[in-house]
């Protein structure tokens, strides 16, 4: 989905959103205040650039506004996150996104005479992380970032994704194996890294 398309939808939704009654307004407002940052961060960690995350987060809440009546009280974060996963997937599948963010091999970043201290650059570290995460399926990636970066527990992730704890643990294990494999590849390009 293009940025333009997202914005068109946003404006359409803005028109639709006008008649929303006060209770719905209040609920939506509360969802926005409570979860916007989390959703935005999640979108970033699901592979979207900052610009795209802005638009995608808006899209997530637009979907929520349209389906507000069907969102069970107490499951707002879960609904939003699962929506975010779908939106991120849509954006990442878009041709324009693939053109912008085609990174075939994370190790390639360390080639060409890069030194370990160049990793000190946070942006570079962030880009490397993204590229490693990009090698994971979205299901694995979601569990991995929720556990390793958001520091949610397995039980919390299971509740958020509406899947069994064992499935979360299994996905986390597989994601970790992938992460470690890619790290090993990075290190193989950097003999003096541990």
């Amino acid at each position, binding site marked *: 989905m293009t940025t333009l398309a997202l914005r068109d939808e946003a404006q359409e939704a803005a028109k639709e959103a006008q008649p929303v009654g006060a209770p719905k307004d209040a609920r939506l*407002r509360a969802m926005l205040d409570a979860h*916007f940052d989390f959703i935005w961060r999640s979108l970033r960690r699901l592979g979207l650039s900052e610009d795209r995350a802005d638009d995608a987060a808006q899209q997530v809440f637009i979907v929520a506004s349209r389906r507000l009546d069907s969102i069970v009280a107490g499951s707002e974060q879960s609904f939003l996150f699962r929506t975010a996963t779908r939106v991120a997937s849509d954006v990442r599948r878009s041709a324009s996104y693939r053109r912008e963010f085609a990174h075939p091999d994370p190790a390639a970043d360390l080639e060409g005479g890069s030194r370990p201290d160049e990793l000190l650059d946070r*942006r570079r570290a962030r880009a490397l992380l993204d590229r490693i995460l990009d090698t994971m399926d979205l299901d694995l990636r979601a569990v991995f970032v929720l556990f390793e970066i958001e520091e949610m527990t397995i039980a919390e992730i299971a509740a958020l994704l509406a899947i069994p704890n064992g499935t979360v643990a299994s996905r986390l294990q597989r994601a970790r194996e992938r992460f470690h494999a890619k790290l090993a590849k990075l290190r193989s390009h950097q003999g003096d890294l541990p």
Partner: protein
Amino acid sequence: VTDPKRLIDENNLGATLLASARSDAPWRSARDRTAAALGLAASTAAVTSASATAGATGVDGAVRVGADVAGKSTSTATWIKIVGGVLVVGALAGGAYVATGGSSAKHSAATSVPAPPTTVRAQETESVATSGLPADAIARRLPAPQSGAEQYRSKAHHASPDPAAESALARELRLLDAARSALDRHDVADALATLDRYERAFPSGTLRTEASMLRVEALLARGDGVEARKLARDLLAQDPLGPHARRLRTIADSP
């Protein structure tokens, strides 16, 4: 199912890479745009007296410094996290030295745009790259890392300044965090005074770019759009391709 130990709590390259994602946070304006798209009023928590000032002076419309959750959560923590990340990698590279410092602290000043939602990208999330820092940041010595990623998560909240032991970079961080905190509580005068102290103490400071960005924010929060735009243009002229260039350009070009 027992939760395993998190990788980010280890002291290695993987932890450093994971920690790099922790500075992610949206700009206040992104949430406000979404609120506008949904037909919701901007969060009342974000409205400050600066709006009135700006309105009265006709500068920048309603210029606000958000009482930004993201800003608050990333200000001190982010600065320290980045330094912590540097420490971790410094150790990996074989020495307790820092090749550079960096930050991606969010500057939560938000230009409120009452116009059609999502059509104006008033904010750009910026991060500060190694290349954006002065040469004297290179090889600045800092205390050796102690316990990896956990260290810089806790350090931000347990900073007990010891001027004798504190590194120059830590002092810079402390001053800029104080300025950020002042902005978060909408005390623009205190923020500007703290930034003045920073500039007197560290005229060639490692974090002077961040200090300048905070000053732009403070000026906007004070409703002083003319000065903010002037400073933004000056900063752009100095470093047109710098990490804050997009945001500065947005401010510089604002009416």
